[in-house]
Each structure stands twice: as structure tokens, then as C-alpha cells.
């Protein structure tokens, strides 16, 4: 973990420390890397030149050598390190081979891209270290230790009007008033009434007549429902006595009634 600690940006340092040029430690430390680009940047810094002047070829060699070492030590390498190794091996061969204008992007451009990425990562790494090294609140600089604090005191203006007051009281009283249950009279036609009515009307119905024709014509809906039920029962009773004939063509179809000829003696 020695290298990892070296890379930790200690507060108080204005720039990242130089990485110790110690290849043995490089081969052993594998956990501390934040990805292949991080590893490449660390290797690049061992060249001890400005990043703009690094030798990409040398960097590729360093990286491939590192990976080889890691493999020899049977260290587990994450896939992206191996992908980077394969890509760098390709880049190396492309850089070494005679120039082929057909290849786009050219190996030089690929190398330049890699260098630009390293520069950018390095810039952010240094900036992060500079930020951390600044005089920070709570560490170097302090705000007031025991501020009295500012308070917002909320006062409540309670809202209630006169109507709300008295209607609330009315409701309490209504809630507490003794409750008396009265069953309302409902308009009904009894079976007896229906029998009388239907019997009286039957004499006029010598032809097939619909049951509804026997109901009181101007009855309210509630009375009409009651009359329908009791008139139906009355018809059944009269049919039983043999005084009427009933007929219905289909389920729920109109119920037809006819006075039985000669039945009325």
C-alpha cells in the first residue's frame, strides 16, 4: 500500500507527490489504482518529464511490463487493465511499423489522444490537491464557535368567524338531541285492493289485455310498483279460480290477461 499512500493527497501539500521510481513496489501494488488511466498516469510521472514531453512508446513498454509482472505474480487484474494492455500493444506495433496513410485515425493521433487524456486527468488531480490544501473552514479557519443563532418567531393569528362558531354549536346540539325513529307511511296497494280492482275491471277485458292496463293510470312510481306486484298476485289468484287466462310469449315479455269466456256465471 506504500504507493497508494504516496498518492493520497495529504492536506497541506500544494501538488501531488512524485511517485517513487521503484519498480518493485509498482509490481506489488495493484489494488490502489483507479483504473488503467490512473496507472498510466502514475507510470508517466516516473519519466520525470512534463507530460507534454513523455514518450508514449516508453509509457506503453512500462505499462505492458507492469501487466506482465502482475501476471507472473498471478495477481488478479480487472478486465479493463487487460483491454488497455491489448490496445497499447496495438498502438505500439502501429507506431513502430512504417507509416500507412490508409489507417485512420493514425497511430500518432491515437498516441496524442492518450497523452491529452493523461494531461487532463493530471490537471484535475493537481487541482483537487490544491483545493484540499486550501485553508478550509473547520480545519484552518473557523466561523464563530458559539453563535447565538437567529430565530424566526412565528406567531399565529387564529382564524374563526362567528358563523363557524354558532354552526359548530348547532351541530353539537343536533348530535346530542334524542333521536326518534319514525317509519314513514309508504303508498302501497294491498292484495285485497288489487283483487277488488282487477275483478271489477275484468268484465271490460274480453280480449287479451296487458297486465299494466289494470294499474291506476296516474299513480306515483312507488304506488305503481306496489300496484303492479299486488295486481300480478291478484291475476294469479283469479287464474287459479279459473276466471282468467294468462299468457306470456317470452321471459320478461308482456303478461297478457283475458277474461275466460263463460266463466263468469
Amino acid at each position, binding site marked *: 500500500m506504500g504507493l497508494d499512500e504516496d498518492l493520497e493527497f495529504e492536506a497541506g501539500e500544494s501538488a501531488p507527490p512524485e511517485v517513487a521510481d521503484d519498480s518493485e513496489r509498482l509490481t506489488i501494488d495493484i489494488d490502489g489504482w483507479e483504473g488503467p488511466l490512473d496507472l498510466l498516469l502514475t507510470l508517466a510521472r516516473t519519466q520525470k518529464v512534463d507530460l507534454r514531453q513523455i514518450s508514449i512508446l516508453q509509457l506503453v513498454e512500462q505499462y505492458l511490463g507492469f501487466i506482465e509482472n502482475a501476471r507472473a505474480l498471478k495477481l488478479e487484474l480487472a478486465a479493463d487493465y487487460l483491454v488497455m494492455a491489448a490496445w497499447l500493444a496495438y498502438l505500439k506495433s502501429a507506431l513502430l511499423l512504417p507509416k500507412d496513410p490508409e489507417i485512420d485515425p493514425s497511430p500518432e493521433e491515437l498516441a496524442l489522444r492518450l497523452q491529452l487524456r493523461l494531461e487532463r486527468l493530471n490537471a484535475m488531480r493537481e487541482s483537487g490537491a490544491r483545493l484540499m490544501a486550501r485553508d478550509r473552514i473547520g480545519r484552518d479557519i473557523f466561523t464563530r464557535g458559539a453563535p*447565538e443563532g437567529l430565530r424566526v418567531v*412565528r406567531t*399565529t393569528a387564529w*382564524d374563526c368567524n362567528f358563523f363557524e*362558531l354558532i354552526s359548530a354549536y348547532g351541530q353539537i346540539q343536533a348530535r346530542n338531541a334524542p333521536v326518534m325513529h319514525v317509519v314513514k307511511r309508504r303508498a302501497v296497494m294491498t292484495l285485497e285492493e288489487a283483487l277488488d280492482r282487477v275483478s271489477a275491471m275484468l268484465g271490460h277485458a274480453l280480449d287479451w289485455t296487458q297486465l299494466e292496463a289494470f294499474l291506476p293510470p296516474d299513480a306515483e312510481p312507488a304506488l305503481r310498483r306496489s300496484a303492479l306486484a299486488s295486481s300480478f298476485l291478484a291475476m294469479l289468484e283469479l287464474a287459479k279460480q279459473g276466471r282468467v287466462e294468462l299468457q306470456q310469449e317470452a321471459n320478461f315479455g308482456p303478461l297478457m290477461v283475458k277474461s275466460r269466456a263463460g266463466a263468469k256465471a
Partner: protein
Amino acid sequence: MMIEHDPAVRAVEATLFASEAPMTIEQIRAYVGEEVDVPGALGKLEEHYQGRGVELVKRGKTWHFQTAADLAHLLRREREESRKLSRAAVETLAIIAYHEPVSRAEIEAIRGVQISKGTLDVLMEAGWVRPAGRREVPGRPLIYATTGEFLTHFGLASRRDLPGLSDLKAAGLLDPVDLALEGLQGLSAVESGDMPEEGESELEIGEESA
């Protein structure tokens, strides 16, 4: 142009400012160093801050900064908010107004529902209800009555101006239909209080600086 300030004064000033508690001269010295004339620096600071918005004060053996006492009113900001009285509170108020003086148990008997402590507190906070002594019965319960402010708020010359039951009935306010429609809505056996939630008195700045 920057004025050259006394390093001892600066050190003591910063130390006391950053401290979370008042400090003795010895405690200050532990920060600023043995060689610093702490009492001398404190004297200069005391003089410097005199009459400013912040003062250096000595309490017993300890020193600390505090905002000037005459500016304390600035540090509390009042904000008035209008809030609707809860249904439980309106009913309780109505019962007190019609039956005063009444005890809490009597209010509950009339309402048919328990009242929480917060409900009476709200009515007293609003200034409409006041404790009016104790009923001379076993347990000597507190009894409550309405206030002059109550009459003023509701535009009543006296409690006799409250409409009687027959008036309420004539106005349809005793109609059980109303009861069925809305009367029992939201009533539960024990009501939650009407007290403002605890978080409300939080520091304003904390909320706004987000």
C-alpha cells in the same frame, strides 16, 4: 491599506471567536502561547468592541463575545401566520361560550368526544379562553370561560348576544341533515392537538441557504 494590528490581540480575538464556550485566561493562553500577554490583549479588545454590535464580556473568570444586548431584538424575527382553527377547537370554543364556566370533563360530556390538551391551549393562545378558577367539586377541576377579546373578535356586546337554541333551529343549524352530511367528518375519539409542529421554529437561515 491594511493597518498593522497587535499580533497578541489578533490571536486572542480569533481564539475567543472560534471557541464554542467561554474561556478563562489560562485556556486562551494554551492556544495563543505562554509568551502572550493575554490580560493585556483582553483589555484592548474589550475597549475596541465597546459600543459595537458585538461585545467582549467577562463572566466570572471566563471571557466570551456576545452580540450587544440592546440588539437582541434584531435576532428574533416575528412572522405572523393566519391559521384556521381546527374543528375540535371551534366546537370547544362554542361549548365554553354557551356554557361557561365549564370544566374540561363537562366540555367532553357535551361534545361526546375527548379533547386533547392542545385544543384548550390553542384557544388560550388565541386569547379567547381563560381559566376561570376551579369548580368546588371533588377533584376541583379547572373551569374555563371566554374573554373580552373573544367578544371583540366575534363582534358581540355580551354573551347574551349569542343566538339561543331556538334561533339556531330557525336558522336550520340544528338540522340533523347537516349532521349526516358533514357533522361527523374527521371526528375521532381522541383528537390530535392544534399545536404548531416542532420544526416550525427552526432557523430561517438554514432553510434559505439551500
